[in-house]
């Protein structure tokens, strides 16, 4: 077993999970769609590393927050669609609330400086 080493994506993991859940809040999407949505919604600030995206999707699925299904994309191609499960939606609400409190707190600290 390798020694515990911080992986590049680890730092962002919690954030990435939240963003993925948010992306799927409005309906099922495939991986590419999720990446594009995050990119677009952040007004091109955030670019999701795909190398981290797919492991994250599968991890969330494994945790029961997402469900997946093979379907057909807009351009008629076979694609895997992810959707929020009930637990996933609950998790999204909690995470969002938590994020708001955290970012608010961090922002206040930064202002005082």
């Amino acid at each position, binding site marked *: 077993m390798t020694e515990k080493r911080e992986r590049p994506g680890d730092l962002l993991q919690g954030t990435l999970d939240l963003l993925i859940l948010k992306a799927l809040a409005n309906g099922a999407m495939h991986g590419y769609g999720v990446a594009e949505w995050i990119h677009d919604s952040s007004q091109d600030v955030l670019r999701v590393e795909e*190398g*981290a995206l797919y492991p994250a999707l*599968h991890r969330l*699925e494994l*945790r*029961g927050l997402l469900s997946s299904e093979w379907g057909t*994309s807009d351009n008629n*191609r076979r694609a*895997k669609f992810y959707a929020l499960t009930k*637990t996933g939606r609950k998790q999204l609400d909690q995470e969002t609330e938590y994020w708001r409190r955290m970012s608010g707190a961090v922002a206040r600290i930064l202002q005082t400086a």
Partner: protein
Amino acid sequence: MRGRFKAFLSRLKALVGRKKLDHDLQDEVAFHLDMREEKNRAAGIADEEARYAARRQFGNLTVAKEGTREMLRFLWIETLLQDLRYGFRMLRKNPGITLIAVITLGLGIGASTTVFSLVDAILLKPLPYPEPGRIVVPSLVSPPGINLGSPYFPWGQVQFRMFTREQTVFQYFGAFQSDSFNLTGVGDPIRLDGSRASADFFPALGISAALGRTYSAEEDRPGYEHEVVLSDTLWRQRFGADPGILGRALQLNGTSYTVIGVMPPNFAFPRAEEMPVFLNFPREAQLWVPAAIPDAPPGGPSEMAVIARVKPGVSLNQVQAQMDLIARHAEQKLPDWKGWMNTRQVPLATQVTGDTRGPLLLVLGAVGVVLLIACSNVANLLLARALARKREFTLRAALGSGRSRLIRQLLTESLLLALAGGAVGVSLAEAGICFAKTFGPANLPRLHEVRMDVSVLCFVSAASLLAGIFFGLFPALAATRENLVESLKEGGQRSAGNSSSPRIQNSLLVSQVALALVLVISAGLLAKTFFHLINADSGFNPQRALTFELSLPPLQYTDQPHIVTLYRNVLDKLNKVPGVQSAGIGETVPLSGQGESTIIRLPDRPAASRKELPYANYTIVSPGYLSAVGTSVIRGRDFLESDILSSLPVTIINLSMAKKFWPNQDPLGKQVGVGSTQYALTTIVGIVADAKHVSLREDPIPEMYVPYTQHVWPSMLTMHVALRTNGDPANVTASVRDAIRSIDPALPLAKLATLSTLVDDSMVTPRFSVLLLASFAALALVLACIGMYGVISYSVSQRTQEIGIRMALGAHRRDVFAMILAHGARLAGLGVAIGLLAAVAATRVMAGLLYGVRPIDAPTFIVVAVFLMVVALVACYVPARRATRVDPMVALRDE
């Protein structure tokens, strides 16, 4: 909970459908790349460039896939499978080492499993009776000064009745005694060994009949006892397992008995090896008849044992307290019995185990030592290989394998080896158990229960796993300890051995030598014991002597003249059989069992008190008996045909009796008699050698012989016949049978055997233990030799460069040879020194098993130590020779 279950399912699916998973992942990523490429193209980027850009954006494809895969699997199973595959490959790659390791382990595990199966059946497993903890054997404690080779003596009917009446602590309280029965009317007459047992005997053990029933208390009364219960073996062998046997009448000793039950298979209590020797129980009881002990028994000697089941909730202490109270009570009523009523409650399990615990644990310890040596040997073997693989480990460490991962890999390999060794061990143990059951001493209790069962298999698995971890951990730790940077700098050069690994190797080797020394010394002591026993003065001559037993049915032979006439006829006929030199009868023959002991009266030496009453074995024999068994007359004379009732009552005593009661005096002409004054005193006319009764090991006890023609008690229904022949005793057996048949066709010949067979039989236990220990010692020795050879070979190969330099600088081959031998000698010497110290401690435990040898026997210690040193040096010889053949040029160029 449900989420976790789902995750588990996905993982399981992933484990099984690995291909499908990879495929899906591939599809998903491909789709992503295509979409990205399309977008890039739409943005006006050229075809080729669009694809590359998409890939670039995606990042490391493999990492993404691996990341996903890792998550979806039982990582540890995957790793384990990988380790296993790798381990198998490594083991296959070195078939030599693998084979040696597996065989070494197999021998160690096989031997220890065999011994464990014995220990398990004899010491650990509960007895095959319901609630065995409640079964006890109340035993009468011998008064001080009376020794029957046991602290206990048999129950009499009077005592049994008294305790039966007054005790309230036992649920069942049954008596039983050995008896033999001549079965007539079913084929040839045959002697059956059985037991007269009271009705409580069966419920005390908690066993009821498999077919029919056992007898009731009403059927266990004098005059009503006409039932017989058969053993399963007897029922199958003699009656073809006839289910209609119940109700059939059998002629036993001329009396008719009705079969009312057949016991379950394997029930043969009391077996000889499970009960005190002096009660002379047969190897297996074949039938049981009611003891029919009268309510008011008429005193007199009896050879009974008691078995009882304690009431639920009553403790052994409470039982003991009440039994003591009854004894005090009885002594008040019958002052004559003072000192003869004390009992000790021996749990049946303790009684059955007897004194086998010590020897068994000794053998278990010995075999554990062998296993230890085997393990440390394999450890050294793997250590050498692991060190040779150091480059591989360094490389793997550099590629990101952590130390624990490498250790796990090495341990997986060791466990694979251990399991293979365990498998070999199981088959060896299977053979070993078979061997032990066939050649094991007959007096080993519960030997028939030994088998390969769940607990034995558990032992094998545990032993294999522990062994694997034990011998795998040393090499794994040693081989992975190296600093990564150091090893890389060395560039894979073999180091000249400053690291800690040779230290581990050396200490393993030293302990091997030490352990082997302890085992060889123990075996040496036992072997010496064995030869002392063989050469011990047995007091008889086992060559060309035939013995058998005659049992007269009591109904036909009711009075003494009748019995004496029969024996006289028998002796006359036998003396006329061609090839017979002399014939005699006696109550016992040497090594056929304990004789009857009695209190004696010495008119010239009045006993001070009842506690110091003199006693001696009292053996009835005929003229010719002493010469037939080969017991030499030291002084005086043998019995003569002229010693009859009307002539002077005479006796012959053995040397021990002469020494004990007439030290510094001539016993010839002195008078001695049995305890009761109603019988006349006899005059000593001869002194003979001490003949041994039970084993060659026993200390002789005083014994007096009386001629059967002058004997006064009618207790000669069972007598042994001894014949000294001119040639091979086997040649006369047929004519001897004919001679007996011509006198009484209903008389069976029982226990027909030569005296030398009896000697062999009595030597089974010492022979077995010496064989066992000797083979373990030999095994340990061989393993230690292999270990020595391996370590020295390895060190020579490590020091090739050094040796090359030495030789280049002018060292002679002789010097190199001496240097390597000295290295081996140092290690062996240290091992021998430690082993000698350990042996001093270990052999003290064996003191009880030795005969004619003290535990710390200097000659044995010295000879074995020297022997081990020589063997160790011989093991070093080949590698030392190899060292002298090192070519300095080649050695130096190599590096």
